[in-house]
């Protein structure tokens, strides 16, 4: 049962990831990304991380994807992507290096080499509890400094977003870049 669920969701997640890269329109890419995110939260659930799975759905599937779709529809950037190369062999080199990277990380992750010390930051709660208590305890004791800094980071990001997206009074440069 677990194997069936894993392979079905893995196939969907990989199909979604491939769709992100291969789709012509950014809108379709965003929807494929949503597919991958939802399947990822299934994997989190299968590994007893219910709280992380819920946060994944709320933050990624809802907030981030909706923000992407919002910007795509706002800008109307459904135009064709130009296929002329400024760096000639860049695309083939990228695919070659990507294949090399795939072999490396799959070999590293697929073996039993990848391991470490057990329960350094505290043990998980017993199964089927979602690890809410253990996560909260660790977050508000060991990681309290990082947690507070995170609040500052979010405020800075919001202020930065407002400043960047504000309509500036400078004259707008509408000249298309050369080569496009």
């Amino acid at each position, binding site marked *: 049962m677990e194997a069936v669920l894993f392979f079905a969701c893995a196939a969907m*997640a990989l199909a979604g990831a491939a769709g992100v890269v291969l789709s012509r329109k950014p809108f379709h*890419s965003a929807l494929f990304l949503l597919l991958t995110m939802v399947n990822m939260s299934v994997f989190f659930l299968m590994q007893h991380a219910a*709280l992380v799975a819920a946060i994944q759905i709320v933050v*990624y599937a809802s907030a981030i994807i909706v923000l992407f779709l919002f910007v795509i529809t706002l800008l109307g950037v459904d135009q064709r992507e130009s296929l002329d190369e400024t760096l000639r062999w860049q*695309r083939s080199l990228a695919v070659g290096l990507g294949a090399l990277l795939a072999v490396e990380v799959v070999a590293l992750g697929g073996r039993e080499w990848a391991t470490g010390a057990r329960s350094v*930051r505290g043990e998980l709660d017993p199964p089927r509890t979602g690890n809410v208590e253990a*996560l909260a305890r660790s977050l508000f004791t060991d990681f309290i400094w990082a947690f507070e800094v995170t609040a500052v980071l979010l405020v800075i990001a919001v202020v930065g977003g407002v400043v960047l997206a504000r309509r500036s009074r400078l004259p707008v440069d509408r000249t*298309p870049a050369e080569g*496009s």
Partner: protein
Amino acid sequence: MDITPSYYLVLGAMLFTIGAVGLLVRRNALVMFMCVELMLNAVNLTFVTFADALDDIGGQVIVFFTLVVAAAEVAVGLALIVAIFRRRQGVTADDVHLLEG
């Protein structure tokens, strides 16, 4: 058939690679951004896998922080893309070469 942590690690590795190749191959800044999100998610999967395999809550806490950083990054990045689009009609990465030496 037993699903060992290696299965999840290999899946995470494949998703990360797809994201990395997409980041290098695509030109549209929005799609490049989505590929970055894909890579972040693949690493999240690896963290949760190790948290479960090693009985350690630290992995899940790190995923929490990764999500926060991803949210902040998307907020700033999309604002940047909107600002670039306002100035020059299009978000193709090759057209933005103001810092070229």
